[in-house]
């Protein structure tokens, strides 16, 4: 940023929106260098997925898989990782389970958080602040504090080896409510709400007709992040799932990390991680369409 601000001359023509070529090149240079910095480990993961087990252990960096093998992918789908490690959960099944966890968690969470965020942002009622602070406070406890009672609750409910522990508790994410509330309060003018009230709209009606159409960008952000959190969840899935049929992708890939007792299978792990990111990238692109501007200004003019 320092380079950028220095590069833009103070005498820039008023209202001009085009950057001079020199500073534009500088901006691109910084953006691309950052891009490489952020992309590098992902790239390393992709090439590792085409290399043998110990290739990641290699001290000499390679920028292209050498030797190039595809057996990590076939091993992943056959479940026969090496003669001694035969995985009991089919990878396809784990992908399905992860998808079920992520969708079943994200869609209701978006509905709940936007509704609650709207009520907190635009309605005043007794206890509003207290309730909102209650939401905030639970955000602040580390999971290690609550994992034992969480497990106890799930096993008393008979929810071990079901999706419920990974769905219902996460329909009420505190940070989601917080983010929704911040966005709605800042960007939806009260005039819109008041006008709807004058027209006799109910609270649910206002939410449906005014709020929902205007919160596309933040729903996209929350949707992406929530989906990815759910997709990547390890801690909670690990304690509630034992049945091979209920194992999710992070649990399955963890079998290859070898940090506890077995030899790491980094190649297969990288292959699994690469496949596991494909749905995430799809979700990213799908939701990113909602991040494209223009929604707000149109609504206000109307």
């Amino acid at each position, binding site marked *: 940023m320092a380079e950028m601000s220095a590069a833009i001359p103070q005498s820039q023509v008023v209202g001009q929106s085009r950057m001079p070529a020199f500073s534009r090149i500088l901006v691109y240079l910084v953006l691309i260098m950052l891009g490489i910095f952020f992309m590098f480990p992902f790239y390393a*993961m992709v090439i590792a997925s085409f290399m043998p087990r110990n290739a990641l252990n290699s001290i000499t960096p390679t920028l292209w898989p050498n030797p190039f093998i595809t057996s990590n992918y076939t091993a992943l789908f056959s479940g026969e990782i090496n003669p001694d490690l035969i995985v009991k959960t089919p990878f396809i099944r784990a992908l399905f389970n992860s998808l079920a966890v992520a969708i079943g968690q994200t869609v209701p969470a978006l509905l709940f958080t936007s509704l609650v965020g709207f009520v907190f942002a635009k309605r005043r009622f007794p206890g509003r602040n207290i309730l909102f602070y209650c939401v905030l406070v639970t955000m602040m406890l580390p999971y290690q504090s609550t994992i034992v009672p969480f497990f106890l609750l799930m096993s008393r409910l008979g929810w071990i080896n079901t999706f419920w522990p990974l769905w219902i508790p996460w329909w009420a994410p505190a940070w989601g409510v917080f983010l929704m509330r911040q966005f709605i309060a*800042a960007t939806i003018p009260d005039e819109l709400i008041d006008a709807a009230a004058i027209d006799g709209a109910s609270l649910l009606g206002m939410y449906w007709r005014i709020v929902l159409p205007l919160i596309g960008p933040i729903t996209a952000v929350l949707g992406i992040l929530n989906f990815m959190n759910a997709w990547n969840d390890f801690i909670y899935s690990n304690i509630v799932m034992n049945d091979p049929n209920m194992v999710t992708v992070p649990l399955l890939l963890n079998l290859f990390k070898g940090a506890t007792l077995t030899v790491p299978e980094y190649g297969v792990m990288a292959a699994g991680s690469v496949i596991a990111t494909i749905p995430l990238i799809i979700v990213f692109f799908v939701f990113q369409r909602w991040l494209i501007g223009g929604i707000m200004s149109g609504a206000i003019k109307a």
Partner: protein
Amino acid sequence: MTTQNQISGTPGLMSAPQVGRRSSIWHQIWKHRIEYLLISPFFIIFGIFHGYPLAFSIWLSFQRWQGIGEPRWFGLGNYERLLKSERIIGALGNTIIFLIILLPIIIGLTLVLATILNSPQIKGRKVLRVLYFLPYITSAVIVAIIFQLLLNNNSGWINGILEAVGIGRVGWLIEAWPARISVILMVLWGATGYNVLIMLGGLQGIPAELYDAASVDGADTIQKFFFVTVPMMRGVILFVGITTTIGLLNLFTQPWLLFSSSSGSGPDDATATLNTIQYSTAFQASRYGEAAALGFIIAILVIFATLIQLRLVRTAEA
């Protein structure tokens, strides 16, 4: 909670709750029954699945418990033990160092990057957004191996480069301050894309008219950034600030993965955090009561830090 004041005059979160005359409190509640009805499913789920573990954890923090058998009452013993522990104080010091360095960098960098990536003038910005977001979806175990390869002393790639250009080796993983910098780099690497995305979401909520008006008034790019973007983004900046603070006060994964043989503590305990200590207290040393108490110490710190940030924003507004 803050910016709506300018737009609509709705009182912010921090303003005194406008409760009517005490006699009419029930009337007030009845009047708002629809609001309560709409938020009740959320709070029922919240109460059961987050409230109960929280209450259990409070109770546990006053017990001695090895995770088996009957817990034994310990009063404030766990808290006393923690508060006079030099390691806890050291870990707190490390955390404050991480906060002071990372918080401004993350907020500044992600806001600027989001603004640039939001600009229609930047070609290929959709691709760049994905690139910046890749750390968030790269396997953590593999990331740890890559960082080890990059940073290790004898054969690390970075030390190889530093030696080649005549600077000499840096003990990234074996000396206190370089170890902290390694953790900071790894956090920055992982957190940027995520927060850029949130900032992008916030930027979409700023009406284009405001920029048009600023242009008419003769503002340049930099001025628009400081006089339109920053004020309009205060709510989202506050969100990023608070969630980043919570994340850093709960920092665990990066030191844990980089310094796995010392339970995340690193050389001279330089990268120990409250959470690495809490994890080993619970799952390695089986002192669950003490771990619960440490959880509350962390939570109190987080609440304290959050209140400071809310106050700062309010002061800046006044």
